[in-house]
């Protein structure tokens, strides 16, 4: 619990650092749908219950579901939180936390979230202890998240509990105190902790996206080389709280998070020529691991954060290099007359995938981190921007040309099969995996301009993340 809590230690400083998790109001147990089979097998990745262990009575009760025959998921309702103070700030926070939590829980598709517009027939509870369970049961809810927001000395106190409607008791609860400035963070944190406790799933609600954008539309002030101004931005996984990272009025593209979420590496034309820069976004410092040698592009951190793979034309031809973060131990991985670009690390850090046009067209190849074991993966007309999924999915997503534009395809390394998840709506490029491997962020022109979208790995649950200006090359924090 503590490690996931510390994933955003500084961004969430005002809230997370002072957030205190108290013991759950009752012993945490798993909430499930009213499935007959739920009493036999526990869901997703939980340790199987030993047959000798006595199981609590409510788990052995096999009840035939009345409504959920077609593969019923656990159904949750997330009404607005109860504001126990009368000021506007607390009441806004109560509403925002409810809305954001509903979206966060819906995002992973582990639960069926009952649409919020159906809650209005149910009277809102006056306190945590008076949840109208009968009314929620009539709506078909298996679980209901109830919570309060209260003024506290240092900001607000937020208490959230997941109640089992059938058992009429709390099965999971958390309490946070902190600033009222960003109430969304309480919802994100509770969503991640609830997914972890109920489904043993690492949620992405507290992760962030980095991307490059021209939303500021700054006047181009310099020379012909600086034809465009793009700056690096970060935003929450749902697009909220956008923040600008680079301010140098040149081209800053292809951002990549460090695994600890404290630094972003990117290609910058700040000095006139493309070079790899690392911005330590909380410390406010900058690093240049390539020491300004040659032209360098497309940096990406190794999974342990100690090394950076990038593309450079320092030896006359674009090739893939790996260098330690401090600039030492430069290794050239490829040696070929063709162009090599867009490196990506395997989750273990022992291999890299990259794009090469040595066969005549750009294709995705993999190579060991020491330069041996080259292997070609794709046979598309044009494949680019490979990105290696995190465990447990052993897949590589890439953009493949499918007509006038590109579409996102996913190559399964074990089976060698390729599937497609976008189908010709605009052009779809630059895929990037979420840290749990269940979602992809990508750039698409389906809504007119270039915007960032996220989609699940099966192609469902498409969401538009950015709406302002043009936005490119998303990268998901770990």
């Amino acid at each position, binding site marked *: 619990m503590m490690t996931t809590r510390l994933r955003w230690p500084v961004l969430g400083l005002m809230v997370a650092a002072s957030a205190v998790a108290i013991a759950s109001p009752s012993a945490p147990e798993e909430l499930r749908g009213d499935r007959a089979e739920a009493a036999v097998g526990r869901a997703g990745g939980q340790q199987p219950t030993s047959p000798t262990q006595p199981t609590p009575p409510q788990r052995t009760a096999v009840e035939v579901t009345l*409504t959920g*025959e077609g*593969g*019923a998921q656990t159904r949750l309702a997330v009404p607005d939180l109860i504001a126990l103070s009368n000021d506007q700030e607390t009441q806004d926070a109560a509403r925002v936390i409810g809305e954001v939590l509903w979206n966060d829980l819906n995002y992973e598709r582990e639960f069926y979230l*009952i649409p919020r517009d159906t809650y209005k027939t149910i009277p809102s509870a006056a306190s945590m202890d008076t949840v109208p369970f009968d009314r929620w049961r*009539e709506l078909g809810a298996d679980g209901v998240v109830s919570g309060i927001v209260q003024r506290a000395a240092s900001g607000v106190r937020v208490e959230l509990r997941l109640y089992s409607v059938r058992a009429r008791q709390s099965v999971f609860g958390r309490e946070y105190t902190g600033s009222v400035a960003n109430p969304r963070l309480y919802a994100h944190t509770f969503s991640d902790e609830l997914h972890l406790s109920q489904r043993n799933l690492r949620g992405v609600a507290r992760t962030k996206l980095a991307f490059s954008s021209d939303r500021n539309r700054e006047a181009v002030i310099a020379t012909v080389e600086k034809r465009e101004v793009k700056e690096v931005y970060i935003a929450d996984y749902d697009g909220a709280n956008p923040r600008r990272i680079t301010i140098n009025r040149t081209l800053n593209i292809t951002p990549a998070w460090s695994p600890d979420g404290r630094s972003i590496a990117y290609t910058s034309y700040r000095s006139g020529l493309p070079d790899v820069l690392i911005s330590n976004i909380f410390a406010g410092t900058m690093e240049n691991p390539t020491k300004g040698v040659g032209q360098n592009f497309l940096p990406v951190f190794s999974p342990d954060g100690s090394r950076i793979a990038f593309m450079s034309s320092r030896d006359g031809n674009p090739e893939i290099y790996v260098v330690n973060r401090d600039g030492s131990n430069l290794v050239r991985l490829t040696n070929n007359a063709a162009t090599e670009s867009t490196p990506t690390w395997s989750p273990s850090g022992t291999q890299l995938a990259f794009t090469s046009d040595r066969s005549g067209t750009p294709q995705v190849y993999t190579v060991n981190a020491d330069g041996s074991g080259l292997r070609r993966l794709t046979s598309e007309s044009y494949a680019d921007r490979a990105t290696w999924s995190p465990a447990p999915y052993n897949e590589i997503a890439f953009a493949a040309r499918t007509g006038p534009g590109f579409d996102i395809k996913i190559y399964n390394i074990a089976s060698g099969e390729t599937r497609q998840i976008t189908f010709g709506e605009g052009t779809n490029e630059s895929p990037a995996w979420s840290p749990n491997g269940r979602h992809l962020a990508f750039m698409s*022109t389906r809504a*007119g*301009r270039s915007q960032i979208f996220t989609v699940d790995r099966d192609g469902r649950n498409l969401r538009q993340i950015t709406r302002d200006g043009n936005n490119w090359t998303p990268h998901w924090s770990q």
Partner: protein
Amino acid sequence: MSQPDANTGRKRARRVSTSLSEINVIPLVDVMLVLLIIFMVAAPMLQKGVEVNLPVARRADKLTNTQPLYVTIPTSYRQDRRVYIDDDGIPIEVLAERMRQALDGRSDKQVFLRGDGAVMLQEMMDVFGRLKEAGVEKIGIVAQERRAGQ
């Protein structure tokens, strides 16, 4: 769309080609939304749910659905505005959401309505509206088949 963009020419060309190759589905969707198929079925011998006096019909189809979904409107609906999904009494306001949950994953989108013979047409219409909102496409009205000599 009209912003200065190096790709404008390319985009325009693509848009033309896609609009020609796609079927315009909006008229089809309109028709689907208006359409609600209503038919009569004979009550099965073994009945689930609360007791109601089913309307009597001269002819009705045999119930062939193996997993029928029943909604019951008793005469008490007039007082308490509650209908029943099998034995589960719910207020009419949540019927649409409960039906959406029940239909999730089912391919037939079919509901069998066990209305008391004394239920008024206005009350039936309330329920039809909620069912249609939930995506129900076919409603079977369950009736008692009048046998010869009755």
